[in-house]
């Protein structure tokens, strides 16, 4: 078994008293104090995350944009410099290789931010399908990535850099200086709250992280681990690869149809996705809230009328809502909001009902 890898902030996390856990081959902070407290810090004030384990795959060259266009489920050529999009890499069966964000950095260049667990798979996938002069380069190891999320996130960044960063629009990015270091900053995130993601040279990540924590004290900043990252994205109704998404799942089943340029085609998987759509969906992703006594968790079965009809893909207590919530796949005829379901918790049917996603309304400027 290969040794766990570490991000540039490993020592910082230990110094802060984090409980470290293995995740996607990395030793990552699960929590520093309490998952619930860290979650509420983001919802109420501002939290800082180390997400340097994620991958960054760059393409630069004459065929970079065209290659990306043929691989991504969203338009690439029409994405202007300084803008970022969420999209999918799909396979020929119409399944999902990974869900990514991609940043248009120049006429002939872009980079993808990919899930840590899929870095190797994505690099191989892109390299085997891109043209030779697409200039594919895996820059994951040299890149540090931090997330700053919560209503006070713009105020915090203004304290360590140019105040104009607060004006950055949603899904836009800019290159700037933070705490005296070069950073590419995007107004993106995985929490449903307002926030930013900071791309740094790996060696600069500890300094910027520590500066955010010290400068953020008057704002009530907290370091936030992967435990709260998961409860936050769940409240926001955001999928997690390996749970809601995998190589066999079609984007349409997962409710990601608006991130797929099916009418234009021209990307790997387009035909298969359309074929699967025309054949009719057999399952669809829903959000649900648990009404009875019990917490739904990934892998628990979903039942209705005494029969098993689906499965929970993610589930946890929602700190903001004060009740357990979850995501899962059910047949389309059980997917309307309000539909009652049972979640099987240790052999017991616990009542739940389908709710609209997101569970917690996005609280961001312009949303």
């Amino acid at each position, binding site marked *: 078994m290969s040794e766990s890898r570490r991000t540039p902030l490993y020592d910082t996390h230990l110094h802060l008293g984090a409980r470290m856990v293995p995740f996607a081959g990395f030793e990552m902070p699960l929590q520093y104090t309490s998952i*619930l407290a860290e979650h509420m810090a983001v919802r109420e004030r501002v939290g800082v995350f180390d997400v340097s384990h994620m991958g960054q795959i760059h393409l630069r060259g004459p065929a970079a944009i065209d290659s990306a266009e043929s691989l991504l489920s969203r338009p690439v050529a029409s994405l202007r410099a300084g803008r970022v999009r969420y999209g999918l890499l799909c396979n020929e069966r119409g399944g999902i290789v990974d869900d990514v964000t991609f940043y248009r950095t120049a006429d002939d260049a872009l980079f993808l931010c990919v899930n840590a667990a899929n870095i190797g798979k994505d690099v191989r996938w892109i390299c085997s399908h891109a043209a030779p002069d697409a200039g594919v380069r895996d820059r994951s190891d040299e890149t540090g990535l931090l997330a700053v999320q919560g209503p006070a996130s713009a105020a915090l960044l203004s304290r360590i850099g140019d105040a104009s960063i607060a004006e950055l629009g949603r899904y836009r990015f800019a290159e700037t200086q933070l705490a005296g270091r070069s950073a590419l900053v995007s107004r993106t995130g995985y929490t449903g709250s307002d926030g930013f993601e900071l791309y740094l040279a790996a060696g600069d990540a500890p300094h910027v992280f520590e500066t955010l924590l010290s400068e953020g004290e008057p704002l009530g900043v907290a370091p936030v681990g992967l435990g709260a990252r998961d409860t936050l994205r769940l409240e926001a109704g955001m999928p997690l690869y390996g749970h809601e998404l995998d190589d066999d799942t079609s984007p349409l089943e997962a409710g990601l149809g608006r991130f797929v340029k099916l009418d234009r085609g021209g990307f790997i998987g387009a035909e298969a996705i359309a074929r699967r759509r025309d054949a009719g969906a057999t399952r669809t992703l829903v959000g649900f809230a648990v009404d009875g006594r019990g917490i739904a968790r990934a892998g628990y079965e979903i039942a209705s009328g005494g029969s098993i009809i689906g499965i929970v893909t993610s589930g946890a207590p929602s700190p903001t809502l004060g009740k357990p919530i979850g995501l899962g796949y059910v047949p389309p005829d059980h997917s309307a909001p309000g539909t009652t379901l049972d979640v099987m918790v240790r052999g017991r049917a616990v009542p739940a009902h389908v709710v609209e996603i997101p569970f917690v309304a996005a609280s961001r400027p312009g949303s």
Partner: protein
Amino acid sequence: MADYEIPDELLYSREDEWVRVESDNRLTVGVTDYAQQQLGDIVFVELPEIGLELHPGDSFGVIESVKAVSDLYAPVAGTVVEVNPLLEERPEAVNEDCYGDGWMVVLEGADAEPELLSAQEYREHVEERGD
């Protein structure tokens, strides 16, 4: 090693439960400070029905943190005669006061078995496992 409260007057199991002898025949059981720190925020506790007969090592319930589900194991043999009603509404009482308000069950007809650990023995058991 982090600081764990391990009251001298209690007995302990290797599964991180504490036992308080109430009388010759009745014992109160809960989980230790080490356990609640390891678990993190407790969000759900499932306790047994009154009358359930337990043998040592039987699962008598479930304790859930945000991320994980853990079984609770009977440290001794006995019959469940009381369960803590507070934990249904306030599972976090286990984090806040694991030896007081966070008690879980009272067992009757139970012997404090020789396999239970003293406070000192339990402290060594915690230290062996590291932080």
